[in-house]
């Protein structure tokens, strides 16, 4: 097992000017499950393939442990691309299906058997080792495929959107399995997904990328509680954070009927480039309903109530028409989403007044999008 280090690693595709991955600096700890996440074209898969040796590193370097692998062939990097090939061989026993790569590598039979048995134990497949894949359930077959990677005892597992081909139910099941298996094995793992929920539920840490540039690395909690910029704030969390462009005046952030007090620290951090504006964000779940006229509250007209049993989400727009143009959420422009008590939700057409929970607002520079101190 080993650490993985991206040291100013860049990938520029021939014929393009903008790097697909731009001077990536990232340290993956030994045994860590790191998820690379971001929208399509953000460079997450390219980053993974650079580590795998499938993409050239045009500048910078990549290390596995202390070893510089920048110019090492993929097969000599001691990594395993998991789920590359699901195909199981029908005539071979489960044990042979798991161990055949070791046989090819010329490992002694006893060692192969030992490694296969160890892997089978972790995968709950011990009693099936002498059976044929046909006798296994779908989930068990997938574990055999994983076992194939495990017995090789690579330094690092790489997974590139491994669940994208599964239906929704199987996806949730498999992601839990992969995450818990990785914890048991303790093998450093780099995992790529476009799905932020997958990232939040699986990763020890998450690395968000956009346009080839690293936006933020941190634990799921870090990403959720203190997104470092507007992009991360809007990308992580479901439903997505409400983000509005507020005017700064009288020590407050103002939009329509909403007047939200700012601290001195925040006010001091605002620069001329911000042109008297600030981006203020709040998560749907970081609000509560108040009566009209409560300080720092604002009104929302309810367009739709989504009841999920454990939660209810109100989709609405700010009362002030003009103000509503300046706010957006996961539901789109001019839309606000707030979570309400599911036992007694408002009705469509109602007006509700909400207040952002103390310490739950997120403030970003209007000019740079970077998080402002509070």
């Amino acid at each position: 097992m080993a650490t993985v280090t991206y040291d100013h690693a860049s990938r520029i595709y021939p014929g393009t000017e903008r790097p697909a991955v731009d001077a990536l600096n990232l340290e993956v700890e030994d045994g860590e499950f790191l998820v690379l996440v971001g929208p399509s074209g953000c460079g997450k898969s390219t980053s993974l393939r650079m580590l795998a040796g499938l993409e050239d590193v045009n500048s910078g370097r990549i290390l596995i442990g202390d070893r510089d692998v920048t110019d090492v062939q993929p097969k000599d990097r001691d990594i395993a691309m998991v789920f590359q090939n699901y195909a199981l061989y029908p005539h071979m026993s489960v044990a042979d299906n798991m161990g055949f790569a070791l046989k090819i590598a010329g490992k002694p039979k006893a060692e192969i058997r030992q490694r296969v048995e160890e892997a089978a134990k972790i995968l709950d497949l011990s009693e099936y080792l002498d059976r044929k894949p046909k006798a296994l359930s779908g989930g068990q077959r997938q574990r055999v495929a994983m076992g194939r990677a495990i017995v090789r005892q690579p330094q690092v597992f790489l997974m590139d959107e491994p669940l994208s081909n599964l239906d929704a139910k199987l996806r949730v099941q498999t992601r839990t399995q992969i995450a818990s298996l990785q914890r048991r094995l303790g093998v450093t793992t780099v995992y790529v997904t476009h799905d932020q929920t997958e990232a939040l539920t699986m990763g020890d840490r998450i690395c968000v990328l956009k346009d080839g540039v690293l936006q933020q690395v941190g634990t799921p909690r870090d990403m959720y509680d203190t997104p470092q910029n507007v992009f991360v704030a809007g990308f992580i969390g479901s439903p997505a954070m409400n983000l509005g462009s507020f005017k700064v005046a009288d020590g407050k952030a103002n939009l329509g009927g909403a007047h939200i007090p700012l601290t001195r620290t925040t006010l001091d951090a605002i620069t001329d480039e911000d042109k008297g504006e600030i981006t203020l964000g709040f998560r749907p779940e970081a609000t509560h309903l108040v009566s009209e006229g409560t300080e720092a509250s604002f009104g929302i007209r309810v367009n739709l109530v989504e009841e999920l049993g454990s939660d209810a989400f109100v989709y609405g727009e700010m009362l002030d028409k003009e103000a509503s143009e300046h706010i957006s959420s996961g539901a789109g422009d001019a839309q606000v989403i707030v979570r309400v008590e599911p036992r007694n939700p408002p009705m469509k057409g109602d007006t509700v007044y909400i207040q952002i929970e103390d310490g739950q607002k997120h403030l970003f520079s209007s000019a740079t999008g970077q998080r402002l101190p509070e």
Partner: protein
Amino acid sequence: MPQSLQITSASPDPAILDLPWHIALEDWPAENLAALPRGISRHVVRFVRLSGKVLAVKEIGESVAYREYQLLRDLQKLDVPAVEPVGVIAGRSTPEGEELSPVLITQHLKFSLPYRALFSRYLAPDTATRLIDALAVLLVRLHLTGFYWGDVSLSNTLFRRDAGEFAAYLVDAETGDLHDALTDGQREYDLEIARVNIIGELMDLEAGELLVDDVDTVAVGEMIVTRYRELWNELLGVEEFGADDRWRVAARIQRLNQLGYDVGEVQMTTDIDGTTLSIQPKVVDPGHHHRRLMRLTGLDVEENQARRLLNDMDTYQAATEQQNEDEEFVAHEWLADVFEPTVRAIPRDMRGKLEPAEIYHEVLEHRWFMAQEAGHDIPMSEVVPHYIDTVLQHRPDEEAILGLDTATLRALGEDV
């Protein structure tokens, strides 16, 4: 809940709608299925017969289905040997409203053989080698076009007979990616995947006692690496030498011929004072006529036989005044009206003498001689019995001379 199907296809066949899309592929009734061998696949795949074609239907995730469809279409445009995509059908559900996976539909490759069919029976001594050679040729060709396969294996490939050799076709592009150019890392990794998969597949046949011969599975698997590298270097390697060593140009071409490539063009450059010469071959595909005849008729014959048959087909097109007709139609008619009756007219006990295409070639020769003597055209119905009487029955039986290989081929041809 009624299903509302979304069908994506470049040339949709309305008959597709008659298939039971509301049933999971796994449970499709036998009446819809065509009996063809199935390879191992991580998805449910079924073969159906529709409007005279055989289609392969595969259940996969929606985004993956569209992606693979597009990739196969791109490969088709690049003229890479690959299965032909027919379309994607999404929005399937059962009458109870349960969602079903979208499917990718491809056209089954006529006269293609899965490797299992080739290995599972008597394996001629060099069948493995020839299959690996074919796969190496395909992989080089894919890599030259910038295609990274990601899951190179025998089961993701189909083989067609190619004048004693095999031609390989890509079947599964699910893990593939099309790039402007591949990095060495991508090529090397594809090769490594190929090596491991091939050995795994052969070990599987071995475990199933389907490998009759003692095949060294690891050695055969390693061969893909060697063959690929040889070919890649021969095709793309720039060779430099002194201007006095010009014989090396011819030597290079000869080496390429030995590898099975015709060289259409060699680019030669000299340095400023003309003391050093460097050459780089521009390679053309082998078997032009062979491919065209195969595409039109599915007949798998030698290159010269193919040229002969194509000429005859052209003559037939002119004689029947079908110059404006689609050549596929003409080919079909020619096959049914001319080629097949001729071959069928050969008595069963003489069929072991020559291969059908060779017999046909000789019949054409014979017709020419008869017409010369008579001074006018002779219809095939007279030519064929005369040929059998005066020529064919005096020929030795060549089947045994052609070797066990051909016997194997024939057995397979009838079976699949």
